[in-house]
């Protein structure tokens, strides 16, 4: 990735009068951290980064920005927002367009073809994080860790994030400006990422998820980071009726996690952010991926690839399979 080209392109975009700011990544304060940055002027573009550490899906900020009440007479800022996206992030943008979360003409998509990002936890396990920021770069098939003037080769099969291993769209599915050359999609492993779950019988599954959901501390990080969980008033927060009680226990935790999985059925674009941010290490990716596989296998639908698609949860065909209806 040519960072100079990225920064130059970004600088050209942010100076445009119809652009409010550009959301991108910058180096974090320590270790393998990468922070989001809102670039408002050309000088800010110099901070931008795109590396195998840029796991965060910035599309979530498109809907996270609060629309605070405006004083009477004051016009809302209708300028566009520019956004750096990887393949998976672009699917979130596409899905947001499908469900009117954002308007297509309100966003400038700056596409960054992505050869895959690293799993920072696996990385930190082998090469513990240090007080100062480290860099990771793409190097052919593999990654390379740059730290203390040392270059350490990181084999792809050891450090590639799980979501990337299963990724079918490394190149952004929509973009207004593309930085860098398209990436050749890689051959996917034979497994579909949910074989481990599917291999369990009902009792084993129950036991597995009971253990996992019991760990949940209901911090709602998964919900907050999710680019497609953007209801301004989440039903899980409501009191009348109380769909999910606030008590943190297996039953309520399960209700919460299952409700979220169902709300994401046919919407989840598998960016893996929920699983990445979960402080309790609940394998939420598996849960959402299983839903996504059901949707893909039964209905041939993949969310976030076609901005003209009908939203899956709101479309019906007379010949839709319904063998799961009891």
């Amino acid at each position, binding site marked *: 990735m040519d960072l100079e080209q990225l920064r130059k392109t970004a600088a050209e975009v942010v100076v445009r009068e119809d652009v409010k700011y550009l959301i991108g990544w910058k180096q974090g304060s320590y270790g393998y951290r990468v922070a989001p940055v809102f670039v408002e002027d050309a000088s800010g573009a110099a901070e931008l980064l795109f590396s195998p550490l840029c796991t965060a899906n910035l599309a979530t900020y498109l809907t996270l920005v609060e*629309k*605070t*009440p*405006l*004083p*009477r007479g*004051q*016009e*809302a800022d209708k300028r566009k927002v520019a956004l750096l996206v990887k393949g998976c992030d672009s699917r979130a943008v596409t899905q947001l367009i499908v*469900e*009117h*979360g954002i308007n297509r003409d309100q966003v400038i998509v700056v596409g960054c073809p992505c050869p895959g990002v690293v799993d920072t936890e696996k990385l930190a396990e082998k090469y513990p994080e240090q007080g100062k920021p480290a860099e990771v770069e793409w190097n052919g098939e593999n990654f390379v860790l740059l730290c203390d003037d040392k270059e350490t080769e990181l084999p792809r099969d050891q450090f590639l994030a799980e979501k990337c291993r299963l990724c079918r769209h490394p190149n952004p599915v929509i973009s207004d400006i593309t930085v860098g050359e398209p990436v050749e999609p890689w051959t996917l492993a034979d497994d579909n990422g949910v074989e481990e779950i599917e291999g369990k019988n009902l009792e084993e599954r129950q036991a597995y998820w009971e253990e996992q959901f019991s760990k949940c501390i209901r911090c709602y990080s998964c919900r907050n980071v999710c680019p497609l969980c*953007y*209801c*301004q*008033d*989440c*039903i899980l927060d*409501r009191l*009348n*009726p109380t769909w999910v009680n606030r008590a943190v226990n297996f039953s309520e935790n399960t209700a919460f996690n299952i409700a979220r999985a169902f*709300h994401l059925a046919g919407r989840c674009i598998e960016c893996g952010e929920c699983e990445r941010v979960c402080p309790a290490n609940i394998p939420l990716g598996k849960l959402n991926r299983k839903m996504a596989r059901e949707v893909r296998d039964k209905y041939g639908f993949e969310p976030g690839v076609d901005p003209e698609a*009908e*939203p899956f*949860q*709101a*479309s*019906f065909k007379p010949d839709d399979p319904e063998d799961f209806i009891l």
Partner: protein
Amino acid sequence: MTDKPKVGVYVCHCGINISATVDVETVADYALKLPNVEVARTYSYMCSDPGQVLIKNDIKEHGLNRIIVASCSPRMHEPTFRKAIQEAGLNPYYLEMANIREQCSWVHEDMEEATAKSKKLVASAVAKVRLLEALESKEVDAEPAALIIGAGIAGIQAALDIADAGFKVFLVEKTPSVGGRMAQLDKTFPTLDCSACILTPKMVDCASHPNIELLSYSEVEEIGGYIGNFDVKVRKKARYVDFDKCTGCGDCAAECRVKDRFPSEFDQGMGKRSAIYLPFPQAVPAKYTIDPESCLYLTRGKCGKGPKCQEVCKAEAINFEQEDEIVEFKVGAVIVATGFDPFDASRKPEYGYNDYPNVITGMEMERLVSASGPTGGKVKVFNGEEEIEPKEVAFIKCVGSRDASVGNEYCSRVCCMYVAKQAHLIRDKIPDANIRVYYIDVRAFGKGFEEFYDRVRRENVRYIRGNPSEIFKRGNKLVVKVEDTLTATPLEDEVDLVVLGVGLEPRADMREIMDLLRLSQSPDRFFLEAHPKLRPVDTATEGVFLAGCCQGPKDIPDTVAQAKGAASSAMIPLARGKVMISAQVAEVDEATCRGCGFCVNICPYTAIELVKINRFGHEVEVARVNEALCKGCGSCSAGCLSDSIQPKSFRDRQILPQIAALGVLK
């Protein structure tokens, strides 16, 4: 909720429908102990006048403000009791029905358990009734006009009735002429009057009626709106003949360069027509039409030195530049009278319909015996060597009906009688013919049917019970292979002509109409009526009615009766000039709606749209419900991720306590 709820619970015996299985007194005693319940009574028939008076008096005496009737399904008597409590001064939506009949007494046997369940159902209703809100119904104006789709006998009759009552009718017919299937028939059973003779006066009437606007050779493209206010868009297909100038003289068809080259739709392909044609001599309107798929000039851009039709037309009516025209209008009600398709006999390959010219369908037989048909009414067949009068004629019934192998389990209701009629006509024309009818059952249920069937048998038409397995050729003869199941005798019957008594099927293009009007199909794939017994001409879409065979196979009298029923139902909103809009509709919480539009997609009634609103200075999209279109079905609510759209009276906060009271939720 301003005042404290005071609930009255009324438990109905429904004769012994409920009380034989449910101890109604125990249920009432139990109800009295429930919170906010002031009065609990039982009565033999709560829906009767004294039953209603009981409720009304209690409302006045005890100041009741919420009423529960524990009786039948709300589909049965909710309107009855709503009206009753309204008469006593309560908001009609302060009523809750506990269904202890269909959902309890009728489906259980054990009295103790059924009583316990009834108690739960009543407790559940009490939990909800306290949370109900007062709703107000609204009225909107209704357009005093009707749209009728399809101008067969059903559409024609409905149009005439509505037009005679003084309302405007738009009668849309896909083909160039009105008349439909009935116009193709020769004689009609069981009275043997000539189909054309009784139909053509009606066809002429509907074309000349001042209140009927006949849109022939036209198709409905779009229908929006709702009962009382449907917005209709119709495409008038180009005839390439100026409608006003054409005199119907027929010079054009006589001179057409491809004269009599194309199978005539009206004659079931047995006769021929030109590229410019009148479907049949009595067609209404008597205006010629150019078939764009067979006209040389329209398909190849040239026709000799110039189109001959244009040369000979004294009225100068031929216009190859003509284009489709879109007509838009508004109506208050819609009648669907789109008819049927005859069963395609090639789907029963064992009968060799595609292989042997002398295996014909009942519809083809109608044209063959008709004086206006391709043979002038003479029944002749070509046996491979010469043209002969068929002396051995076999009819096979239930072809494509009562046959799960072709997906049609239903009885087509007309085949028994039309086969009997055709057998009679053959006997009439060929007195020495040997005629036999292969049947599974003979269903002669209508007025005069059994007598007619008897008469035909007495005319020496042999009825042989057996369902033929195969038809094949032997020399100049067709062989019907069949077992006479009454004598258990296998037969190989050599005949000259086989008539397949094909059944009636839903039209192949019915999905277009279903999508236009959001109609449903019953398991037989015909259009689904709102209630099989009590609302046989209504549909789930208010203001849309069904007439004729599009709803299910019917003979002519039944079709006419249903058409008259549909006409009178359609005239209710037209005559009132107003339609009541249900108050039980979905409502959007604009503060929490995220404007994703899922509900817009999901709504089966196109009742929801996205609108832009100003939310504290920001322009945002939210869903908005058209209350006139909404049926309160709740589909939107099920699809809403933020619970921002909910049907009134069925909000989560109203039904969750109801479910909790059943002991399902904690």
